[in-house]
């Protein structure tokens, strides 16, 4: 029992108690909700849809860069491709929007070339500040971090360029 000393407002502030409905009641409640949503949907603007899709991408990007897992498929090109798709743009039109060549865009999309700061700032501006340049930057950093940790060949190769290594171990 919820304490009788609490007001209904205090209860609502602290709890959402489970409500048990029979199967029939649940079906009726779900149908009622679906109809209500349907009538709202009919008046929903295209702009609202774009907003939801943009937020979805933003949250996916934020959670990926904050998480500890590295997934090679979730690279810069992947997120950029998602962004262009949700904008409903052809690659050519998007390249024009952000003032780069189609070839350059293709390199970014296929991870053949690392985007510079100018480009990620342009992405921030293009999304009307919804997806920040710093998050695009962190995505690139996450890829670099993975390479730095795991790429043994780079260490072997660069060792040849280093002399007079400090003779200390920590």
């Amino acid at each position, binding site marked *: 029992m*919820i*304490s009788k*000393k*609490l007001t*209904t*407002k*205090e*209860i*609502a*502030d*602290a*709890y*959402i*108690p*489970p*409500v048990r*409905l029979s199967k029939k*009641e649940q079906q*009726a*409640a*779900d149908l*009622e*909700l*679906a*109809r*209500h*949503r349907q009538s*709202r*949907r009919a008046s*929903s603007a295209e702009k*609202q*849809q774009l*907003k*939801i*899709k943009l*937020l*979805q991408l933003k*949250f*996916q990007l934020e*959670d990926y860069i904050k998480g500890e897992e590295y997934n090679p498929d979730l690279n810069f090109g992947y997120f950029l491709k998602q962004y262009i798709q*949700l904008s409903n743009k052809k690659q050519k039109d998007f390249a024009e929007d952000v003032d780069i060549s189609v070839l350059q865009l293709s390199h970014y999309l296929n991870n053949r070339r690392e985007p510079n700061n100018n480009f990620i700032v342009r992405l921030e501006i293009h999304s009307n500040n919804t997806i920040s340049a710093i998050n695009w930057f962190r995505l690139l950093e996450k890829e670099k971090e993975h390479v730095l940790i795991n790429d043994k060949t780079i260490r072997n190769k660069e060792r040849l360029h280093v002399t007079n290594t400090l003779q200390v171990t920590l």
Partner: protein
Amino acid sequence: MYLIECANQNKVFVSIRKVQTEDFKTITIKRYFFKWKAYHNTCEIFKLTLLGKEDILGLIAIIDRPSEERLEIKLLAVSNENVGQKKRYDRIAGCLIAFACRNAIKRYNNFPCVSLTPKTELKKHYIHKYGMFDAGRQIYLEEEALINIINFYYND
């Protein structure tokens, strides 16, 4: 995402993570009011803690309804010391609801929705506090109302 410490109005930052099986040792009815373990198999249960801490200040159980692009909040509770006038922290329930809203958008990009079936006497409070829409037996958040909750609770 943060709570307000009622005594001094300071912000304290929080994280929300999935409840692990071992958490149920500390999730008692006395402190969290419901039999949470009974919902473990049918719901996704998440816990809110202060950032870097383990003590659970609030819990939410969610059911995913993919065919309707909807997450249903089955139950929610804040820990007993955070209920009523003498509560230590404010905003726990709101943060958990905002977390559900953010998850709805992460999972569904057409018409993501968060709904709940309220006790009749609590319905108007949820509608008033969270800007929910009234669909009769159930109330829900979608579109701008859903985004507003996320913006309100996630903006530091």
